[in-house]
Structures are given as structure tokens and as C-alpha cells.
């Protein structure tokens, strides 16, 4: 950002009442906020009713980073520009240590604020958490109630018995038979 333009600030209020002041460019990473700001219907504090302060902090961190990457991308030899690998590593680091409930909140927030990149990171993180777990482990992790009867669950398992085998490369039948 060049020094000559005055940075316009935007204020966001989280669901628990904390107010964050960010540059307009940072807020605009969120498509939902961008639309609002362009329609000029947000000069007071913007309430973000479904996002708590710790989550909003994380979201703002993400947006700031996006601004940092994109603002200097017009110049040649951008020191902030990332290769595909670096972007991946950065995303992993950003999501490191995020627990399941924080992750759900992040997903709700990024979906609501329409931040595609963050949503993608969250979805990937979620995928990595679900992978390799038994259904019961998934239920425990995300507090999902099992509303199947034991018979119903058995039926689904039987229909796809191969998928419930421990050995990932279990072959269901020999081709010689």
C-alpha cells in the first residue's frame, strides 16, 4: 500500500461484543463484507453475529495475509509471492493446532463471510481429521449423535463390507476363482 492514500478503516463486531478495527482492504477479502462496503451500507460497526472474537481474530489474520500477498503482486520480484508449495505449507501452519470445534466455527465464519481460500483450507483440514477414523471416532470428535438403530448400521456396513476392513488393500476375491 502506498503511503499517499489514506487507509480507510472498517470496524467489525464479533458475536461476543468485541470490536475489531481493520483496514478496508483487509475486510474486503471477505466477499460478503466487500459487497456491503461497495453498497456503502456499512459505515457504523458491522456486526458479525455468528463469529466469536477468537475466531474473528483468526479470520482477520488470514485476510491480512491475503492482502500482504496480493498488494505487492503487481511489482516484479515480489518478496511475498509464494510458490504452490509454500502456499500449502503456509496453509498447514495456519491450521496447525486448530481443534474440531474451532475448525467448525472457522468453517461457519468463512462460509458466512464468503472467504473462499479460508473455506478451502478449513475443508481440507476437516478432511484430514475425518480420514482414517472409524465412524464412532468421528462421532466422538464432532459430537454427532448416532441416530441409526444397530440393525440399520449393520445393514450399511454389510452393504460396503470392503470399506470397513482394516487392511487398506484388502482384496475381496481372488481372480483365479
Amino acid at each position: 500500500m502506498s503511503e499517499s492514500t489514506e487507509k480507510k478503516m472498517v470496524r467489525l463486531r464479533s458475536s461476543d461484543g468485541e470490536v475489531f478495527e481493520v483496514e478496508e482492504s483487509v475486510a474486503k477479502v471477505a466477499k460478503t463484507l466487500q459487497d456491503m462496503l461497495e453498497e456503502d451500507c456499512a459505515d457504523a460497526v458491522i456486526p458479525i453475529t455468528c463469529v466469536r472474537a477468537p475466531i474473528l481474530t483468526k479470520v482477520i489474520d488470514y485476510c491480512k495475509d491475503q492482502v500482504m500477498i496480493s498488494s505487492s503482486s503487481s511489482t516484479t520480484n515480489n518478496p511475498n509471492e509464494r510458490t504452490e508449495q509454500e502456499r500449502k505449507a503456509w496453509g498447514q501452519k495456519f491450521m496447525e493446532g486448530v481443534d474440531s470445534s474451532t475448525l467448525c466455527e472457522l468453517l461457519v465464519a468463512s462460509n458466512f463471510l464468503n472467504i473462499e481460500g479460508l473455506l478451502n483450507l478449513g475443508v481440507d483440514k476437516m478432511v484430514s481429521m475425518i480420514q482414517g477414523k472409524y465412524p464412532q471416532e468421528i462421532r466422538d470428535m464432532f459430537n454427532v449423535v448416532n441416530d441409526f438403530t444397530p440393525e440399520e448400521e449393520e445393514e450399511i456396513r454389510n452393504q460396503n463390507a470392503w470399506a470397513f476392513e482394516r487392511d487398506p488393500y484388502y482384496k475381496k476375491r481372488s481372480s483365479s476363482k
Partner: protein
Amino acid sequence: MEIELMDPSSAKQDVPNWFLPLRDEEKMRGPTEICDLNNDVMTEILLRLPLRPLITSKCVSKHWYGLLSGVSIKPQLAHTTGVFSYDDGDEWGYLRHVPEADDEYAQDVHSAVDTALSFLPTFPDVLVVAGSHGLLLATAGTQKRGGSFFVCNPLTKKYREVPRPRTARGHRMRMHSVGLDFNPKTSPFFKIIFYRHSHDRLFRKRTANRPLELELEIYSSEVGKWVNSEATEWASASCTYTHMVSLNGVIYRVDRKQQQEEEEEEEQQAKQKIVEVDELRVPVATATSSYGSIGQAAGSIYYAYGDKEKSTVWVLREEKGKASWWELKHHVTMSKFTGLAERDLGAGDWKNIVYQPMVFLSSHELAFLEDSGGGVIYDCDKARFKRMEIVRQHGITSARFKAFPFTPCLYDPSLASAVPAAAGASTSG
């Protein structure tokens, strides 16, 4: 057993109104849970899972089961894993799913798919005649002429029986006389298209001097019956060859015309939506003794053309409001091609390669070619050949085989007409 499904639309997915002031009950609410995610996000997560955890997630809860069972949405696995190859030696079908990559996903699909289609009632008498996305069109082979068609999903092991059209009874089905049109991304229904043209044995009115006539019978799972189209005069009498494929409700057809006096052949392609006919020129004018073929795989139409000098593949690109155009995906000269084949397949083992792919997967730049040893896969991107492993069963020794594109999906064809059209349109944010 019927599993009562939770209607995902009734699940909480209301986006809080942006302009509403902060409500106390929202402050009081417990921690955000996975069930607070709306169905779009949830579906996105589930469909990014590899196949095995995706299947096991079905039994987490009824809501998850509903998201994955194809009742309210049409889950489409994001990857194309390869082709089904089909060996028709002794007019007996055998199917094998060919994973194109040795990754875990392909292995999972491989162990999930019933390659022999043993769930069909006529098994082991099964002849595969067409394939589109995750569905295959099969029918009983030689023993039961006039038997039903089966539209089946070898992944979910579900099928739907469709009686043959009256005019097709008593005849052996051939590839290219019947097509399957299914694309879960654009429609929750499938169509079976049965082509008969006057140069076909099936067309009773065959006479040498008549123009080529074509009759179509179309079965749509939306309507649940066959609809016959009037015989149409499609092309002039000089048209000697026609080849059709359908995708997204459009039939693409390649005609080959022969003008005796000039010894030149001309191809043109027409796409028709039953009534309207658009002409679209194919990318190459063909030389004598060779012709191009048209096909579909993974949602694209491709045109392949090979002659003594080169092998080329184009993919049809279409955008709204723009004229369609052909994108050249692959071009290789014969001398280079044979050199590569010799290097990768060993001398002499590739002699009868047919340079026109049976299936071209544009998403992976893979061409599946037929040769005397069964089949070879040509990786257009890496310029590498690989022999397709074909397991021979039931004493089949014939080398001839056909391949069908296969993009695994969780669609259940037996539900097809029960799926309301509106439910198929999942909203995307």
C-alpha cells in the same frame, strides 16, 4: 430395509440475517458443532474424502447418510479413475476396472467396484454395451436375445432394468448402436439412445440407393419409457459411415461421405437435440482409408483421428454464447509414436495398435488404445505407453476388447425416476 432419511433441507442451515442485532440466545448457544455447517460445506467435505472413509462415513448419522446416498444431492466423486475394459472374445463379457494410478484412491475404487457385474440378474451372461460417467449399460449376451437392458452402477451395485425397445428385440446388441447418456453434474436422469440407420441390419427398409436414414429410440429415466423418433433423412446417399455419441442430451454424430469421382472423403459432424440440427465441422478433413471417431469421457466430447502419418485428438470446448471450438489435445507423428511404443512395450508387441483411442480421458490426457495384445494406455502428457493389465477369466483368450470411460459416482440408478428434478439441483454458494 428402508432407512428413513433426514431431509437435509430441514437441517439447520439458515444463515443468520446479517442486519439483525446480536441476539442473546446466540451468545448463550453452546460451542459450534459440525452439525452447524450447512449442507453445501458438509457435502464439500465428504466428497473430498477418499472413497474408503467416504463410504464408512455413511454410517456416522442419518444426516451424513442422506448427504451421501444421492437422494437429495448427486454426489460425484471428484476423480476419474480409469476405464472399464471389456473383452468380447467368444461374445462373452468380462469387465475389469483399470486404475490409472497406483494411489490409494484408485485402489479403493478398485476394491469397491464389482468388476464382473455379478449383482445383475443375468450374471454371468452379461454384455456391456455402453458407459457414461459412473454408469454402465449392460444386457444379456448371446443366450438371451431380446433381454432387458440394465443400467447399473458397479460401485453402489444398484441397477435398473429397462426393457428393450420393441424394434430392438431379437437382435444382438452392438456397440455404437446403443448409447448411454448420463452426467450427474447436469441432470439426475439418464437416457438410453438406441440408434438404427438404414445401413444397419436392423433397419428393415434397407435399400442400396436410398439416402441414409436414421431412427432413434430414446429411453429417459425421467419419463420411464421409450420414445420413438420418426425416421429422419440425415444425410445423402453417399454417406457410408455414421458414428454417434451423446452427452448432456445432445447427440453428436460423425458422418463419412464418399465421393467416388474424386476419391475423397469428407467428414462432418452434426449435433442434434432431436429436432434442431447444428452442423459443426470436425477439426480435420480425412484422407482416404482412415476416419475419425467421436467419443465422450468425463464430461467432454473428443474427436480422435489417426492415419499413416499422425495421431491426433481434439476435445470439444463449449461456452455459453460462443461458437464451440475444438482444442487440440494431442498430436504425435507416427514415427515418433512407433518409436515410443517400441521403447515402452518391447519390440513386436505393439504391431497392431489402432491409433484411434477407444477412450480418451481429457482430464488425465490418457488415451486407451486397442492392440493385438489387448490394450495399451498412452499417456499423452508424459509420452509414455503402458500395457493395460487384463485378467483373463473363463478361458477367454481373444484379444479383442472394448473400453468404456468410468468416473465413479454414488448414483443409484434404481432410484432414478424417484428423484424429483428439483431435489437434483443442489444450491451452490
